[in-house]
């Protein structure tokens, strides 16, 4: 299905092909990739507009895999190819909000746009429009420490959305939020996606969240992680971050993911 030629850029925009990727944790003090193997020989592909969740036990290297896809850590072997070519920009959303605390909400979004090459005036206008769209127009000139956790997360998502990335890479993006805020921000994100149709790769340790959000769940083994199996999630869209959990079939899917996860190695108290 995936074509080897990069000529038809537009049709493949948002697709992702991960082929035989291994990543080693960097050895202290060297730039050599000779450290412990973090993930081993991972291959999967994602279609444009698809939402893929990756779950796995802690320490399986799922966050490292996501950083490798984003180009933040070097690959020990294998390749990562984005439809649309190597110039494709990714929107990375961290577990923390990772906003620059010395920039205002608007300033953070503007910086993302400026780094993508937008002129200052255009960046300012676009940031203003984005903040209005996420319901935070009034917070444009506030600094991150002055915003609530949910507001900061929305700004972080808006920042990643600002330069119209082909693909969102999300690393436990909602896990640091309290339960109520998580539902609000989760639905906020699902609504944004329904409008803009970005591809998403979402790393989480939360099985329910993975099933509620994703079209497909990849289950990783214990570290060094490899893909154990993949489970399609044929639940109808639009989804609701919370209410989807009560849709018929959800429980079965959740059970399948749970069964696919490697048994915990930690003894229960």
């Amino acid at each position, binding site marked *: 299905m995936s074509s080897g030629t990069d000529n038809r850029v537009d049709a493949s925009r948002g697709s992702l092909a991960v082929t035989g990727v291994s990543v080693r944790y960097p050895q202290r*003090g060297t730039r050599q990739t000779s450290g412990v193997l973090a993930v081993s020989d991972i291959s999967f592909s994602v279609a444009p507009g698809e939402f893929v969740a990756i779950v796995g036990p802690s320490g399986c290297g799922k966050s490292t895999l996501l*950083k490798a896809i*984003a*180009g*933040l850590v070097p690959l020990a072997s294998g390749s990562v190819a984005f439809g649309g070519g190597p110039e494709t*920009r*990714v*929107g*990375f959303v*961290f577990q*923390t909000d*990772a906003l*620059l*605390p*010395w*920039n*205002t909400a608007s300033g953070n979004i503007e*910086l*993302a746009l400026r*780094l*993508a090459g937008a002129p200052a005036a255009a960046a300012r206008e676009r940031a203003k429009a984005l903040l209005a769209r996420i*319901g*935070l127009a*009034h*917070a444009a000139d*506030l*600094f*991150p*420490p*002055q*915003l*609530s956790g*949910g*507001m900061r997360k929305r700004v972080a998502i808006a920042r990643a959305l600002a*330069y119209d990335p082909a693909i969102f*890479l999300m690393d436990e993006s909602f896990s640091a939020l309290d339960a109520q805020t998580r539902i609000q921000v989760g639905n906020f994100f699902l609504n944004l996606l329904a409008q803009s149709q970005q591809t998403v790769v979402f790393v989480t340790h939360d099985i329910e969240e993975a099933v509620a959000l994703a079209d497909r769940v990849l289950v990783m083994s214990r570290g060094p992680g490899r893909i154990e199996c993949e489970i399609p999630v044929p639940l109808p869209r639009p989804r609701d971050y919370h209410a989807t959990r009560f849709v018929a079939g959800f429980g079965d899917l959740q059970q399948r993911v749970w069964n696919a996860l490697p048994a915990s190695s930690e003894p229960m108290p």
Partner: protein
Amino acid sequence: MKSEAAAVSGTARRVRFSPRLASWLLALALIAIWQAAADAVPGMTSLASSPLLVIERLAALAANGDLWRNLLPTLEETFGGLALGLIVGICGGVLMARSRFAASMLDPYVIGINGVPRVALGPFFVVWFGIGILSKILLAVSIVFVVVLFNTREGIESIDPDLVDALRSMRANQWQMLRHVTIPSLVPWLLASTKIGIGLALTGAVVGELVGASAGLGWYITNSLNVIDMTGAVTALLVMAVVAMLMYYAVLVIERRLSVWRSEAGTR
């Protein structure tokens, strides 16, 4: 959403005159006790002068230009030592934070230098670099740079890795990373080192002057005590304290301007 914003922006700022007022009152009280002791105890003024004598002397020194003649070299040495100490310390700190090799190689030296009481180097520096301002600047640098180096190193090592990754995921280049993450992260650490550095630089300058100089507040102290002029010595000492305080408050003003994002968030 409205209420969310109101909750955050409505930071209660308490009116606090009392500590500041108390501070001024304490100063007045100490001056009054000092004056009273000078008046009551015979011979006290030859041991500790008195506020009235000091004010009188300050006026005389200001009038005949001696105040400025001795203040200027000390200020030059202090600012010179502070500025150079910051430069040397920042460069060393960046080098040692970025290169494990440099860190391992230089660590024993930095720790060794830090362990030596640098004021003991004063006589050496005067012998090597003369009785001019150079020996005092270098003495100040030798004291200041270690603090700056430690702070810079710690500052670089405590940069939030998520911020670095966030900017890298947005394809920031080295310069943009420096401009938007590294320098802003270091600002609080450098302000802290500058605040400590002021007193240290002044110490270096004055100790150098005590050892050997032809002008400066330190020289004025030695010179006064040689002729048992306690009022002159105490006046010079108080001028130093005022200089250090003014420099410190200048840094505080800069700090407020540079860290709006923190002061507005906190409950100051």
